[in-house]
């Protein structure tokens, strides 16, 4: 369980961004979370609430957008959904695919700031 460490890094990043914009109160944080990021959504949700306590982000919402796993299929020569996290192959033609094009994201994309 390293989601608390992740949540603390997030808060640090969000406060830095909000300060750049005059320190406005942040109501919500939008996060893109790849299914292959190694971070568990539920544990992160829980940790985020905990880590926000006593900071300017206390009471803010965490809005998570789950990002599915896409691979580059060498046979189809295009991006495809992976069969599953356990089977990194093309969901259409089943060719094994080593290159991941999407699904490892762990990034803050937007902040909702009190107007």
């Amino acid at each position: 369980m390293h989601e608390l460490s992740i949540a603390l890094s997030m808060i640090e990043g969000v406060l830095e961004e909000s300060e750049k914009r005059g320190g406005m109160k942040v109501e919500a944080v939008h996060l893109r979370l790849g299914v292959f990021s190694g971070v568990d959504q539920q544990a992160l949700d829980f940790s985020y609430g905990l880590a926000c306590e006593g900071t300017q982000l206390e009471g803010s919402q965490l809005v998570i957008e789950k990002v599915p796993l896409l691979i580059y299929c060498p046979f189809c020569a295009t991006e495809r959904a992976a069969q599953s996290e356990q089977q990194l192959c093309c969901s259409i033609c089943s060719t094994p695919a080593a290159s991941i094009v999407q699904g490892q994201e762990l990034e803050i994309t937007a902040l909702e700031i009190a107007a």
Partner: protein
Amino acid sequence: MNTRLVEVRQKVLKQNDLLARALREQFQDAGVYVTSLVSSPGSGKTTFLEKLLGRLAVENRVAALVGDLATDNDAARLARATSQVRQITTGTICHLDAQMVQNALNGWNLNDLDFLFIENVGNLVCPSSYDLGEDMRLVLLSATEGEDKPLKYPTIFNTADIAIITKMDMAEAAEFNLEEARRSIQSVRPGMQVFEVSAKTGRGMDEVVDFLTSKRSSARPVSIR
């Protein structure tokens, strides 16, 4: 209350990634080749590393950092193979990050090293998120674990470059199905190179030594002694 949406694009682990990049440059400049090891607890990382260090130390200058929640027992074990060993005790933290690696390197002259190994905390989940600036990440799977471990922990197998199946001397007693283990690895990481070793009998260890040696010479071609 009215709110407005402000677009930002920031990787959550930006600080770690920046530090890892700086470490990687530092390693490159110093000519030291850096390999990290990840696995579940008890899969034989320390024994494997102890034997590996012993073999590499014949012709190379080697050092190791070893991460654990508590105790410096592993550092004491590795010290039998090289005097350049440091323990990173993480307390309650379940993984190493780039900052811990940087702190642990304090005072070491990297120019005096050919190989540096970083043994992560025994954990197949958390270490996957943190870049340590290493050139190569080895994931270990022992013959006494389930053959489907890669399917249960696909992320860490995917962030690793090479898989090492350890404790092959125990394979028969544990009724380990090598083919199934290899299939599981290829399923989560198509094309991944796999070594089978026994640190105890020495099986496969020379192959790993040769592999790392050739990787180092291609990654650090102009190292000047």
